[in-house]
């Protein structure tokens, strides 16, 4: 299969403007089948906005988006289910497509919450709900999976298991994954392509090359960067408070 057949999404110089201020600008990225692309960056750096562009939820105000994915699944960062709705886990699993019960149980078992299948969503803890969200996305068998801080609120052991699961799923389903994560250890050890965001793409590349990059070190601090890399380089640009590049 050639390179193009594996392409799921291509963003070319995309950006989103809100009341005449650019939230993100000049974003270019590609997601291929079987590869994990990670977005890292500080709060408010436009990670979620970028993910929403890739998912066609937000329209890009510049550049172009090509989307060849046929089945997308999404684990949003924040989701609150209104208590006015009596929604059980099993109803939630069937939300956007019909999945048979065996597959639902299988997916819930993967994230360790199969015993909650008939529980009401609003009785779940934050971590349990997060596991249900991931299970739901997996059960859809997508070709593009977008995970926005998928393990928030999950206990420490669970976090490692879920990250391993994500890696496994990527290989098993041969799906492309766009992951937003603050766990630099996982990002650096298991993903194929890392993009450092701060309103624009500061740097991007393979994890190996990224940890050597000066922008990355500047964004995450010497200490964090040093745990993953011994290299330091001269900064090639510096940031204004809104994240744009100072000239």
């Amino acid at each position, binding site marked *: 299969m050639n390179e193009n057949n594996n392409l799921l999404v291509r963003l070319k110089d995309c950006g989103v403007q809100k009341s005449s201020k650019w939230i993100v600008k000049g974003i270019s990225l590609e997601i291929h089948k079987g590869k994990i692309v990670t977005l890292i960056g500080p709060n408010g750096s436009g990670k979620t906005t970028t993910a929403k562009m890739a*998912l066609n939820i937000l329209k890009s105000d510049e550049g172009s988006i090509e989307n060849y994915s046929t089945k997308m699944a999404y684990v949003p960062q924040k*989701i609150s289910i209104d208590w*006015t*709705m*009596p929604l*059980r886990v099993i*109803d939630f699993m069937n*939300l956007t497509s019909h999945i048979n019960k065996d597959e639902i149980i299988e997916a819930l078992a993967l994230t360790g919450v199969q015993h909650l299948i008939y529980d*009401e969503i609003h009785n779940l803890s934050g971590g349990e709900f997060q596991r249900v969200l991931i299970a739901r996305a997996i059960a859809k068998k997508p070709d593009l999976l977008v995970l926005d801080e998928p393990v928030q609120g999950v206990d420490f052991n669970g976090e490692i298991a879920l990250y391993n699961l994500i890696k496994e799923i990527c290989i098993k389903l041969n799906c492309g994954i766009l992951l937003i994560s603050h766990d630099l250890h996982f990002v650096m050890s298991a993903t194929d392509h890392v993009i450092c965001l701060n309103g624009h793409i500061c740097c991007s590349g393979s994890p190996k090359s990224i940890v050597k990059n000066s922008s990355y070190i500047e964004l995450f601090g010497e200490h964090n960067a040093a745990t993953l890399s011994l290299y330091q380089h001269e900064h090639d640009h510096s940031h204004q408070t809104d994240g744009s590049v100072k000239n």
Partner: protein
Amino acid sequence: MFDDFFIRALVAGVGIAIVAGPLGCLVIWRRLSYFGDTLSHSALLGVTLAYSFSLNIAFSVFVISAVVALLLVSLQKRTKLAGDSLLGLLAHSTLAIGLVLIGFLSYIRFDLMGLLFGDILAVTTADIGLVWIGGSIILIILYFIWKSLFSATVNYDLSAAEGMRPEFSNFIFTLLLAGVIALSIKMIGALLITGLLLIPAAIARNISNSPRQMIVIAILSGILSVVVGLFASLEVNTSSGPSIIVVALILFIISLVPLEIKGQLQKR
């Protein structure tokens, strides 16, 4: 069979209750009760316009409600006012315009009470046809957009990301709401329609634990409210709309009992 006005009212009322069930659940889930109110207040304007230009009442009410809904969307984009302020603005101004117009129509004998609170005597065989055919169309459309509408109710982004086109189904849902108000204004009256949407769904919420169950119970309690309400209205000669809503309220209070017992059991 439909010779008796009471049978006619019963058949039409049950039809409305069936349509109001699922739509009422969505209104509750999406916290749209005040939106429903606004649409039904504007329905009065629709009725007066129908009389002024001798149009079909249901058609005219539907058009006005749909226009008000679209106005709301465009005002939300243009102004900095919150949704509830805009709803209040639209509800009361359309109600006021409707009432002013009624003043101009003094040459027509007007039953204002009937418009506001519903009148079972006014239900004709044609109305029954309208309720059941119109109601069926609403339910069929609802069936086709259900997955999209429901997923968007749970989470809009999720629904949009996974190709459910929630924007489109939200728009259709607004029209369906306008439709059910148009169908029921004659029976229930402009001021109380939202009650028939909301209260059966609220009853259902108290005693159900899945969305499907909630819809079924909403329909059943709606039907029960209509049937008992209409018998009571016949018996004690009260307006049909308020009688139905009072019965629904009583059912709501009864539905609190299992909730209360459950709470007590959990305390132990």
